[in-house]
């Protein structure tokens, strides 16, 4: 093989790419840094700012129906859950604590909606992890979930005293989230 050294020293490297490469790199890293700061569980929802959808559902482990109209007048937390949902287990303790703290106070009502599940599985789930101190309605065919725009469990909706949805949370709740959302619907702890 011969060594070829051409006289025309056309440079492969032009000066302009240097600042460009560095600026692009730093810019991307900056974007990632901003991205880290955002909350991945926040989800804008068409429902936020609107009235809570009407529903009438059977009640889990109890007689009678659960109607959205009966719940009006108080701030309301609606939590969609199911026995098949693994992530629901990790928020279970938070919900139990929240229920014990708030259900008696009369400030806020909490409703679970058991979504696309069977009553027997749901009851078994509650007996192994502890029953909620508040009622759950049964949304076996998922119709009410569709009205709420639920696409993955768990999801929790926070409704103020006038019946307007103020926030939607996707994924397991933790203490910090709960305090933040309660402030939004005007509940003091």
């Amino acid at each position, binding site marked *: *093989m011969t060594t070829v050294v051409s006289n025309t020293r*056309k440079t492969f*490297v032009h000066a302009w790419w*240097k600042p460009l490469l560095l600026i692009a*790199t730093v810019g991307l890293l900056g974007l990632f840094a901003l*991205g880290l700061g955002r909350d991945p569980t926040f989800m804008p929802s068409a429902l936020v700012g609107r009235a809570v959808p009407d529903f009438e559902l059977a009640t889990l482990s109890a007689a009678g129906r659960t109607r959205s109209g009966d719940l009006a007048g108080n701030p309301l937390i609606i939590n969609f859950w199911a026995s098949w949902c693994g992530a629901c287990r990790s928020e279970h303790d938070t919900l139990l604590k929240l229920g014990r703290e708030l259900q008696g106070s009369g400030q806020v009502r909490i409703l679970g909606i058991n979504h696309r599940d069977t009553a027997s599985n749901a009851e078994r789930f509650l007996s192994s992890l502890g029953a909620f101190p508040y009622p759950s309605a049964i949304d076996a065919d998922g119709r009410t979930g569709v009205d709420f725009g639920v696409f993955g469990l768990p999801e929790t909706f926070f409704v103020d005293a006038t019946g307007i949805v103020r926030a939607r949370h996707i994924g397991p709740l933790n203490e910090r989230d709960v305090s933040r959302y309660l402030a939004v619907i005007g509940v003091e702890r």
Partner: protein
Amino acid sequence: MNGSIIEFGMAAASLALILSCAAIVLALASVSMRHPAFAAVAGRALVVNFVLATVACLSVVWAFVYNDFSVAYVAQNSNTRLPLIYRITALWGAHEGSLLLWFWMLSFYSAAVICLHWTTHPRSMPYIMATFAAVQTGFLVLILFLSSPFTELLPAPVEGRDLNPLLQDPGLIIHPPMLYLGYVGFVVPFAFAIAALMRGSSSAEWVTATRRWTLFAWLSLTSGIMLGGYWAYYELGWGGYWAWDPVENASLMPWLTGTALLHSIMAQEKRNLFQGWNAFLAIATFALSLLGTFLVRSGVLTSVHAFAVDPTRGLYLLAFLATVTIGGFSLLVMRADTLRSPVRVEGTLSRETALLFNNLFLIVAVATVFFGTLYPLAAEVFLGERVTVAAPYFNKTVLPIMVAVVILMAIGPVVPWRKATRSHLQKLLVIPAMAALAATITGLTFGIRAIIPLLALAGIGMVLAAIITDTLRSLRARSSTTGESSHRALASLVMWNRRRYGGYVVHLGVTCVAFGILASGLFQEAKTVVLSPGERFEIGDYILTFNGMESVAGPNWAARQANLEVTSGDDSLGSMQPQRRNYPRGEMTTTESAIRSTLAGDLYVVVGEELGQGRASIRAYSIPLVGWIWAGWLVIVVGSLFALSQPRPAASRQSAGSRQVDAVTTPVGGVI
């Protein structure tokens, strides 16, 4: 007893951190103080780190095998009823353990490179070792302080949770390790490129030395991606294998730049072209491998593959990524002037220009995937909007570029270096052009009217024809000069040019994959039906008869299974049993699709809800020629291994541009 073993593993990892820090200092000191003994100590420290990494991994595996639930990672990802093989592979079933596997592979590559290149690259070695040691330090800090698989859980639970049921599958035993082997493998060209930049060496020796490593990493990454696709295909039950999920894209990006690197280093080996560009590709490929890790583990993007989110970890990973990219690219910018090529690309159509276009297309593809993957993040950060970029964007933008790459595959390998005359080109390309025409006409008769699929078919035909005619031409030339019989001539031609013919075989494999993707996408049929026992339905050439549901049980799951009889014409093709499995420990349900595969196509059946009175909903797909994708992968593996089997050339002649030769190796002509 068990507790002390995991502590032993943690001690090993801690010692490895100390040694890797020491290795950075010693390796750099050996250069600045001109003290080669320091380099020798650094080398030994990194080889010892491989042993320590092995000990650390084994200690976690031990805890899994003996169900030691006092180890938090084991308690979260295993239980006593999990089969032994999954208890072992659970090591990489979640975030913490998979990082440990990453580190183990990194230490393996470091030790192997040090042992194999110690005598051939003495001047670059301190920088190479410093780079390895720095990357090792970065991972060890993450493992020990932010994602420890060694953390104790006290009091120890009597039973663990379960390994994610989706991961309890043979495909998941090998998919992540293959992927990591690829990701981590790109650390070798990265380290060599950094060393070349630090030394200010513009010789081609680093590309010659890393070519095999790059090919090996590329093969592993290709296999990892393919296995992931195959796993998704038979496990997830939606009849597809690629969803343009951010994490899939994250694995595709280093694959694309790695492919570009694999090709463009030939230009540096042969003609000393593209020096700065190759260094850029080596850095970018490793940075993109790290980016994949960052995206999956920081929660910055929403994806089905995402691990649990932890902001501190995300911040650390970002800092790590920033160090690698800013460090690497700054070095490139500072040293760019030493990388001026003494030669330039000449001729309008030559191997060089083909490689240039190959790189151009692949880089445009990377940029397109990159943009589509990160746009949702940018939109949310700057516009406050949630958007998703879905498959249609990627299919519309990336696929045409890849079709162009396929067409280039027919031209690139056969045109000569430097300059091709017009008549020569005509001679080279007339048969491939005819094949392209024939393929297009065949496509038209099968009812394909869209332009991109037709171009893809034409490209595939062209590649096949180009490879065959080029091989025949060389064969004729050889047998006329040596007088060998044609099959002897073929054997010796191929055996003496393993790189070239291995590359051809890889290209054949790529055309198989392209053909499979094309045909399975174009002619797929899907049907959802609700059936009572005894009812039948038709899909593709098949008739399926539903014989009811039954319950079956496995070691840690219980399932409802549909029994279906398959017939085609008058032939009975046996039965298929798709399942819905319930894993009680993790309260998860998975679908187990039943697949009947032939090279002509797959029949793919998934069972859905049971609707009472023995009725069940069944979804079936007829997916023609999808098996060609997996068959093509096997061809790629064979071709790559064949290319890798070429013996290292004896140090004799000096390569084209090696002015400061560290190791004198002769590049051998090839397509890869």
